[in-house]
């Protein structure tokens, strides 16, 4: 007899929940958002990052505080508690639809990147393999994903840091000067565009009840943001210091170009495959988590106890949607630069903020 995997809280620790937030944000960020920041802020991208992390910390604090106010409940259950059976399910549908959509968008971005590496392979095959792997892992349960991520995230951090260190000798910090050459507007636009990074915060609403345990929310938020800051500062400053701001603006994947540049002691070189490996690992965890969020959320909407039966059909829908979302890579980049960050802020920050405010008002009214 198979065990029943319900939509009720899963058994993961605070550390695992935090790590599962860091991996997808890092994978998306290095692959996609570094170039978007360069597009707006250029060499001042690091200032955009600092502002974005502050805004992201506020969003994360809202989400954890909301989970803390509703112990042992996920975001969907909280929305039903707050807004009633019908309106709550409509809000829940927004969250699930959002997860399905960003899952498709990010899968497509991964496919576009992989086509550079394997141009002869059709994109649908590249994305199909990734989503099939995600579906297989997703069916094993979130606890298994968390344990796999325990192994993968340190590999990502150590390998990424080593690759960054190997090009240090060629970096010219002077390329970052003068600071704020074009004023604050491009920097603020870059910071806003970077908010798309934190779209996965909604996922935290599904599995992050562990982060809501205990009283000290702020230190946890600051720790997560500090780790993200360390992991992004290198990729955001690295390409500029290495190639110069003008060259970086023209690059599609600046961090990958940096990895391709690694040459050490005439022995170590051609490490671009390491970059592909890192992004594939990160994207696989990300796809699995998003598929888990979509499947468990859909199970809740359809009042089904076991989400696993829904994984395969939802994986097919995600794959189809990923082909449909954009005609080509340029169109997708334009969407990631304009609509996507605002959608992320609306569903990932403003909607949970509204729910938190409503929770506090209800608590006040009840005395």
């Amino acid at each position: 007899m198979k065990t029943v995997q319900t939509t009720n809280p899963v058994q993961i620790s605070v550390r695992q929940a935090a790590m599962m937030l860091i991996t997808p944000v890092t994978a998306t960020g290095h692959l996609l958002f570094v170039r978007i920041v360069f597009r707006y802020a250029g060499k001042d991208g690091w200032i955009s990052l600092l502002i974005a992390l502050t805004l992201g910390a506020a969003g994360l604090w809202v989400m954890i505080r909301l989970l803390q106010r509703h112990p042992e409940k996920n975001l969907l259950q909280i929305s039903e508690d707050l807004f009633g059976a019908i309106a709550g399910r409509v809000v829940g549908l927004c969250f699930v639809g959002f997860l399905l959509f960003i899952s498709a968008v990010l899968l497509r971005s991964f496919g576009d990147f992989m086509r550079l590496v394997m141009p002869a392979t059709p994109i649908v095959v590249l994305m199909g393999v990734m989503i099939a792997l995600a579906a297989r892992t997703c069916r094993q349960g979130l606890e298994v994903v968390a344990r796999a991520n325990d192994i993968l995230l340190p590999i990502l951090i150590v390998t990424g840091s080593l690759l960054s260190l190997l090009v240090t000798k060629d970096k010219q910090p002077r390329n970052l000067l003068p600071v704020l050459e074009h004023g604050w507007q491009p920097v603020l636009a870059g910071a806003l565009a970077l908010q798309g990074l934190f779209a996965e915060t909604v996922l935290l609403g599904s599995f992050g009840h562990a982060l809501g345990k205990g009283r000290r929310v702020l230190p946890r938020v600051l720790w997560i943001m500090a780790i993200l800051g360390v992991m992004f500062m290198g990729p955001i400053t690295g390409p500029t210091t290495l190639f110069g701001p003008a060259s970086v603006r023209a690059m599609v994947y600046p961090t990958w170009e940096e990895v391709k540049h690694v040459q050490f002691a005439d022995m170590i070189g051609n490490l671009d495959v390491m970059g592909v490996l890192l992004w594939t690992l990160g994207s696989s965890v990300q796809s699995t988590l998003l598929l888990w969020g979509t499947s468990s959320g859909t199970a809740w909407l359809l009042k089904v106890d076991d989400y696993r039966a829904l994984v395969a059909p939802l994986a097919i829908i995600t794959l189809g949607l990923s082909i449909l979302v954009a005609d080509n890579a340029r169109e997708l980049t334009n969407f990631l630069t304009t609509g996507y960050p605002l959608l992320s802020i609306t569903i990932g920050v403003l909607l949970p903020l509204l729910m938190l405010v409503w929770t506090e008002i209800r608590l006040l009214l009840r005395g």
Partner: protein
Amino acid sequence: MLFGFLAIILLEVPALVIAGRKKELRAFWLLLALSFLFSLGMVQRWPLPNPTPVIEAIFRPVADALGLQ
């Protein structure tokens, strides 16, 4: 495509039937029908609804005002 769907049915349905999970079975068939129609639409190039232009149209005024272009 048909073989893929058949494989999914063979993998999922017998276990659900044996366990007597009627709700899961109903939800599975519903989503599988949706995903089949969606896939067929992709293959046959039907004009399927794409959420991206709708989202862009909703956020375009805000994006323009904030300098996101």
